């Protein structure tokens, strides 16, 4: 009954909360453009698109994991091991086969994460948090063992020319970078997957109420494994895009990507409680995260202050998430 009390007056507030991220993006663009006109330059735009790269792919995968009611902290370790394995194979089997192996490895590691969770009976986000955190440590250490702790520079290391890597790293097609086109491709495919397919919907049921979904005949265990496999695949795409952009790949290359991906997903408005979300929202979330750091860089905000702002934004986003869902 209290719900009805606030219903009318909160319609506007609800709308604002739903699309807050859009308003913030627009506000941020306007303010930065006024204070620092360099923001609107072609160069900065290209720069923005490049930064979009790896994070956007990881965040797309993370969207489904969070929508399914889980979370994945194994991203840094996975990015690291996938990049290292792929680069190590380039000279042996060639560029494209190596990338295929990288994608396969990502999918397999994701499947491993998911199976592990299902088999130890980890059915809550908290348990997934710790297990995937542990897995990240393992993957990252394996990457270090594999490379002996050395970094790799694909620009100078390999005898092969690497056209695909080069294209992914700095190629343009029309006004947009190749990696951004790739992102648009995945965004469209995953949006259709999320809204039109049984599997996509089954993920939201699983995240909405795992027990009810299971009792309703939804194959929840397979769903959990699937979202981690999909997440792993997307991490692999992100990893490849990432090493294409930075010519020197160090084992710590993936650090903080889990934080930024979760942040992008939650800021976009996908609920940490599971069940509700969208890849389109994640697109907006990634845009905001990237814009934020770009603007702060342009405005000359100190790095550590930037971290503080990022932290505050994440806490705010989670608070908003709870508010939105407490409303019912």
């Amino acid at each position: 009954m209290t719900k009805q009390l606030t219903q009318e007056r909160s319609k506007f507030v609800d709308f604002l909360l739903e699309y807050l991220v859009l308003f913030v993006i627009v506000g941020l663009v306007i303010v930065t453009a006024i204070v620092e006109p360099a923001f609107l330059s072609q160069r900065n735009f290209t720069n923005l698109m490049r930064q979009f790269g790896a994070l956007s792919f990881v965040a797309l995968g993370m969207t489904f994991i969070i929508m399914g009611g889980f979370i994945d902290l194994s991203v840094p370790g996975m990015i690291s091991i996938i990049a290292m394995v792929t680069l190590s194979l380039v000279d042996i089997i060639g560029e494209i086969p190596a990338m295929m192996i990288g994608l396969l490895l990502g999918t397999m590691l994701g499947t491993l994460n998911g199976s592990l969770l299902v088999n130890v009976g980890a059915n809550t986000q908290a348990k997934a948090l710790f297990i995937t955190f542990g897995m990240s440590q393992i993957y990252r250490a394996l990457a270090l063992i594999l490379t002996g702790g050395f970094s790799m520079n694909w620009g100078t290391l390999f005898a092969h020319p690497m056209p695909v890597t080069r294209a992914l790293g700095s190629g343009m097609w029309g006004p947009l970078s190749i990696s951004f086109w790739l992102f648009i491709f995945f965004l469209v495919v995953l949006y259709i997957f999320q809204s039109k397919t049984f599997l996509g919907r089954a993920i939201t049921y699983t995240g909405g109420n795992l027990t009810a979904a299971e009792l309703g005949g939804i194959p929840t265990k397979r769903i959990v494994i699937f979202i981690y496999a999909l997440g792993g695949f997307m991490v692999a795409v992100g990893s490849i895009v990432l090493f294409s952009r930075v010519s020197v790949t160090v084992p710590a290359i993936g650090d903080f990507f889990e934080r930024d991906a979760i942040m992008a997903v939650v800021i976009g408005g996908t609920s940490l409680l599971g069940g509700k979300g969208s890849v389109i929202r994640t697109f907006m979330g990634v845009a905001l995260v990237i814009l934020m750091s770009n603007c702060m860089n342009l405005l000359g905000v100190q790095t550590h202050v930037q971290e503080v702002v990022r932290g505050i934004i994440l806490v705010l986003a989670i608070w908003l998430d709870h508010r939105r869902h407490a409303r019912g």
Partner: protein
Amino acid sequence: MNNNDVILSVQNVNKSFPGVRALSDASITVRKGTVHAVVGENGAGKSTLMKILSGVYTKDSGTVVFDGETIEHTTPIQSIRRGLSIIYQEFNLVNTLTVGENIFLGRYSEMKGMRNMHKQARTLLDSIGSTIDTYRLVSDLSAAEKQMVEISKALSFNSKLIIMDEPSSSLTADELTQLFTLINDLRSKGVTIIYISHKLDEIFELCDIVTIVRDGQVIDTKPIDHLTRGEMIAKMIGREIENEFPSRPLVTYNKVVMEVKTINTRKLKDISFELKKGEILGFVGLVGAGRTEIVRAIYGADKAGELKILMNGSPVKIRKPRDGKHAGIGLLPEDRKLEGLVLPFSVQSNIVMSSLENISKFGFINSSKEKEIAERQIKSLSIKTPSPHARVKTLSGGNQQKCIMGRWLEINPDILILDEPTRGIDVGTKYEIYLLIKTLVENGSSVIMISSELPEVLAMSNRVLTICEGRISGEFNPEVDSAHDIMDAAIG
């Protein structure tokens, strides 16, 4: 009446929420030392009234006089300190604290040390004849024990009036008897009780006076012995219904649809029985006897050590709910909010959940069929919802339950298992659910029904199995055998 003093007088209280008049001119007079029942369908305004009394809501107009003091604005803590406590159905206890700490929650500074606090808690519990150790954690207590803690807590404030909201909903028959003894005892000590319940038998057994609420209005207040059960129901729903239950459907088929050879788990011992096509089989037993465990094992929701089931004569392997569903079994779970519904989702999403896979081609959902299914079930079950896209959590309990029924009816399983299908549902909707069950078996499905309301199982079932301590302790024909014999076998 023991005493003519009025403890609580509510005169012409109004309360509106935008679009809804929750209470209009509600007046109730409660006399000291009585057990005063308040009955009404879900959404009739009982809760709103009680929340005004306890200070959760503020009334729009009207007067409330409690213990000679006119009360304008109050907060929950002020009400409690004044001597008016309310015990909610879900309890208001902190699971991770001990019994003693819960009783004196927020008053530790007044207690002069933990030892003294536990001593006082002991005295309170002793005074109501409870032996719960005050050092136990609340999370380890049964529902009945939690209730004792709540009552002790209320008494620790020297409550003159205790409101109990559906106190019996999670109690076994034995525990209920104990609660009644306690309430009678409190009454004789001059404590007044407002007893809110859907269970009319309890009200007739326990209460002195009953107030009937419907659509935000007080319809009538009468001494209990001036009312019959039928009159009370008629006043609650605003029309006469001749029967609480539809006539018992006949079993017209002679085919065994499911044969449970053995179920053995840690809790269940050598369960075996048959289910005929078109039959309603009732499971009767105390809470915790193993009724829910049996059906969960059959459906694949719990792992069973040994599970041998024949469906239509051929063995089936059921390891997970999905297997159960594919074998032609559906389960309406005991706790509809936790196990049945996806509360933040729409009515449509909740209805189509189990049939979505069947209307998908190459993994793509046929969205027009999805809409069709939702509309069909909303219509045929007359689910009261503003739209298929309304969130299911905004619906009343009965309509929520119908959504889960609709989910299964769409699949049309051979066997539908109903675990407490009418718990917390008002009388009118209960009858609709009985009719649905009847239609279901008349169309050739079979039903296993678990219910803690004995009259309901006995009136609906063709056959009854009593479950006691993980075993089947008897088989009865409810048309012939007496309720007493059946209960006897269930208690063991």
